[in-house]
């Protein structure tokens, strides 16, 4: 770790404050809570470790942990900055939280930062999932394992359905958006059409409809 950038270093150097007991003195001195204040310095090592921890904790979804790490624990981003970056990652194709690691890494260290954050986020999950796959290859034939996985699969499908239904709520009062949603579901899930041509046809129509929507 670089001598100047460690998260603890500034605390050691902290000048005596005009003290009125704030709850986070060290952070306010180094400007980590300010929106437009001095640029926050993050080393490559810190980037790797931060995303490593977020990835390692993210059972059932990394997003909450990435946000917690970035905004609440390490304060590399403000809540507003996070929301802004996430809306970009959500809009771009690809795994959202992986995209987020790229954007955050690039913000601090360009291409090297992006690759470091990405590697940090994926190291442990990749190792774990391959270990699970190896265990399954070894023990999957044991009676009961398939049955348990099938049971969980039925519930997991329900969980994803429920997530989708919750996300669909805002579209209930927008007939055109709802129609796009239902057509997408029908041609992909029921008719099993290939995704790429479906997207090439539907996306421009849907974006045009949004363009001409009365505000």
């Amino acid at each position, binding site marked *: 770790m670089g001598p100047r950038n460690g998260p603890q270093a500034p605390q050691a150097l902290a000048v005596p404050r005009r003290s009125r007991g704030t709850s986070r003195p060290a952070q306010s001195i180094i400007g980590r809570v300010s929106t437009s204040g001095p640029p926050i310095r993050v080393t490559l090592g810190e980037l790797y470790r931060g995303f490593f921890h977020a990835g390692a904790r993210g059972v059932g979804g990394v997003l909450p942990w990435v946000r917690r790490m970035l905004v609440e624990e390490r304060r590399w981003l403000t809540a507003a900055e996070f929301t802004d970056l996430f809306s970009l990652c959500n809009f771009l194709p*690809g*795994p959202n939280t992986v995209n987020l690691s790229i954007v955050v890494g690039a913000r601090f260290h360009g291409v090297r930062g992006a690759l470091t954050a990405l590697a940090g986020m994926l190291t442990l999950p990749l190792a774990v*999932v391959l270990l699970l796959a190896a265990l399954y290859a070894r023990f999957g034939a044991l009676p*009961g394992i398939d049955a348990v996985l099938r049971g969980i699969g039925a519930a997991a499908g329900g969980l994803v359905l429920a997530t989708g239904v919750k996300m669909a709520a805002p579209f209930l009062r927008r007939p055109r958006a709802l129609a796009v949603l239902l057509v997408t579901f029908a041609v992909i899930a029921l008719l099993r059409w290939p995704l790429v041509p479906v997207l090439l046809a539907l996306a421009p129509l849907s974006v045009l409809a949004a363009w001409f929507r009365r505000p």
Partner: protein
Amino acid sequence: MSPLVSIAIRFAVLSLVAVGGVTAVIPEVHRIVVDVHHWASDAEFTQMFVIARAAPGPNMLLVTLIGWHVAGLPGALVATAAMVAPSCTLTYFVSRVWQRFRAARWRVALEAGLAPIAVGLVIATGWIVARGAQDTGWVAYAVTAATAALVVFTRVNPLWPLIAAGALGLLKVV
């Protein structure tokens, strides 16, 4: 064509069309893996989905597992890289200019237009995962419906229905 090359090309394309994240392209992954290439059965696909969800980390790990299933460790690495590299490259470059278009009308229209498609794809994913677990008839459908209802209408931790469903499976009910 060698399976490794097929995996690389197929997943690289999916990486660039995965609007709304990987969950949105799972129906297409299923179509490629089960219907087109016959790399796995319906039931195996749902099993891989469950195993991938049991690991921590981003939900793209299903792709890693499929690569592993088809071509071992090289398959896992190729599949992961193919799913990550194209979208990450795009993200890197777009993130440098995005702020400039913050309030642009076309950006708002793009976001609003793509959102319902992404949600339709998420619901399609739930449908396909659930269908892969339905060998045993109405009980499995009931488990799917009950879980969905619990998650939509109550604030219960989703882990509980998952554990209960695993137990039902073990008891040979599902």
